[in-house]
């Protein structure tokens, strides 16, 4: 049970980590290239797919570090 009049808030320094997956995919100069290819995928495609992993990692870390637990 949690207390009704808790002084808890959403604030946590971990939240700043969420900025990484928001900013990375919006920087086309990072990924708008054909070479190097990976498994036949031009960089444009494999790097953006790789950003999904970055997104999952960052949100998972923030979730774990800010989870309230019961």
């Amino acid at each position: 049970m949690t207390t009704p009049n808790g002084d808890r808030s959403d604030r946590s320094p971990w939240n700043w980590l969420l900025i990484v997956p928001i900013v990375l995919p919006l920087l086309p100069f990072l990924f708008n290239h054909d070479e190097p290819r990976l498994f036949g995928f031009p960089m444009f495609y494999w790097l953006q797919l790789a950003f999904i992993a970055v997104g999952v990692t960052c949100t998972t870390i923030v979730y774990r570090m800010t989870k309230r637990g019961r």
Partner: protein
Amino acid sequence: MEQHLTEIIVFTVLFLVVSGMGFVAARWRRPQDLASLDEWGLGGRSFGSWITWFLVGGDLYTAYTFVAVPALLWSAGAMGFFAVPYTIVIYPLVFLVLIRLWSVSHIHGFVTPADFVRARFGSPTLALLIAITGIVATMPYIALQLVGIEAVLKSMGVTGHLPIIIAFAILAAYTYQSGLRAPALIAFVKDTLIYIVILVAIVVIPVKLGGWDLIFDKAQEKFAASPAPGDGILLNANNQLQYITLAFGSALALFLYPHSITGVLASRNRDVIKRNMSALPAYSLLLGLIALLGYMAIAAGTTPIGKDNNTIVPRLFDQMFPDWFTGVAYAAVGIGALVPAAIMSIAAANLFTRNIYKEYIKPDATNADEAKVSKITSLLVKVGAVACILFLDTGFSIDLQLIGGVIILQTLPSVALGLYTRWFHRGGLIAGWVAGMSAGMLLLYNVGNPATGKLHFAGSAFPLEKLGLDTKMTIYAGVLALAVNLIVAAVGTVVARAVNAADGEDTTHPDHYFADEGDPRVKDLDFSPGAPKAH
């Protein structure tokens, strides 16, 4: 039609099995009473991580996405891949915002974003605007789901509108009966089918075509040969800004849609939402791979039926798979259309019932009244969506959806920023909404497409040269309109404060935004009288 017989049989059988599940769903997780809006429209707000994952995923990644995104890659190349950054950016972006909405909604019993705005800014007018925006933006979205089904039917040689009408009549019937439980249950099947189909597709098709290298090279050849300036397997100097603003703007818009909010509010507690925000990108990976089906179709020399690019993916499946598996793939797309369509119509119906019917038409409506009106409205919304398909041409419904994205974005200052700050004055927000909406329409009106000869409403890429800038760059019209909205809302707020205009009362309290399951103030079933409070 004869040569597609196996496909049609597999498709029909799977479709009927799933529809049967929809009707049974009313009994699933044994609700006390479906005659309250909380139970019917939010599934009792008790969905855990898994169900929420399927529900929200089924909600955001629709059949239309699966058909239209590859079609866009097929015709325009890299630009169509915006769906990937879009679905990466969205989760960290809304991670913190939506849990605040969950908390405040569960304390006050909000079911819709307009409920929240009404309480936060003390303005029924603003709430009405938000509700109307939500309903109007949702309708073409539902219609698009039908476009997905239509593309599949067309590829099986089934023409005419009767099959679509039957499919939607079935959908309407089980949504009416089972509420949000139906799409939540069906989403399991839909996602399983889609995962199987896509995994097979991305392994089998590239092998048959001679490898990924060759697929990308063939695509490059096609775009090099085409006269269109914007296509290619990479972005060019002029469409990069469009790419990132479209990805960012669409991400902002997606979670403002009433149906996404419905899925989130139905989850059990804040941790369920957080966990989902980190697990949902699994779908983005799927979406990225599905997008590349467009290039596979180029390499395979697939042609659309007539001028309907949406038939590219179904045609590719037909070309590459044995008939029975094509039938499974088609069923995946068809069922994939039903889940979001059901959630969207429920969300639109909740908006109407709570923020228009109860607010303006019958203030003393009982819980049973609300549930009844909501059920009927959800039927009407679906009839409207079917009418969109029957009476408008397909191209136009896609443009309507683009407009939908731009208009739903105009609720961002009141809903998303409203969760963080009460600085805005209700008058400023209303002025901002009007300005943003007008600017958005004006911008879209001025987007033409020389290739199709359409002069107006032909896309969302607004050429900056029309603003007098010396450039060929384009930008997503939605973010420009949102900027206008924010500026006017801010100026309007300053002016309203300066002249001491009366502001509405805020009935929420800062600590309402942090409450979680277990807090005695968090209500689970406050709509149904006599129902036990779940703790």
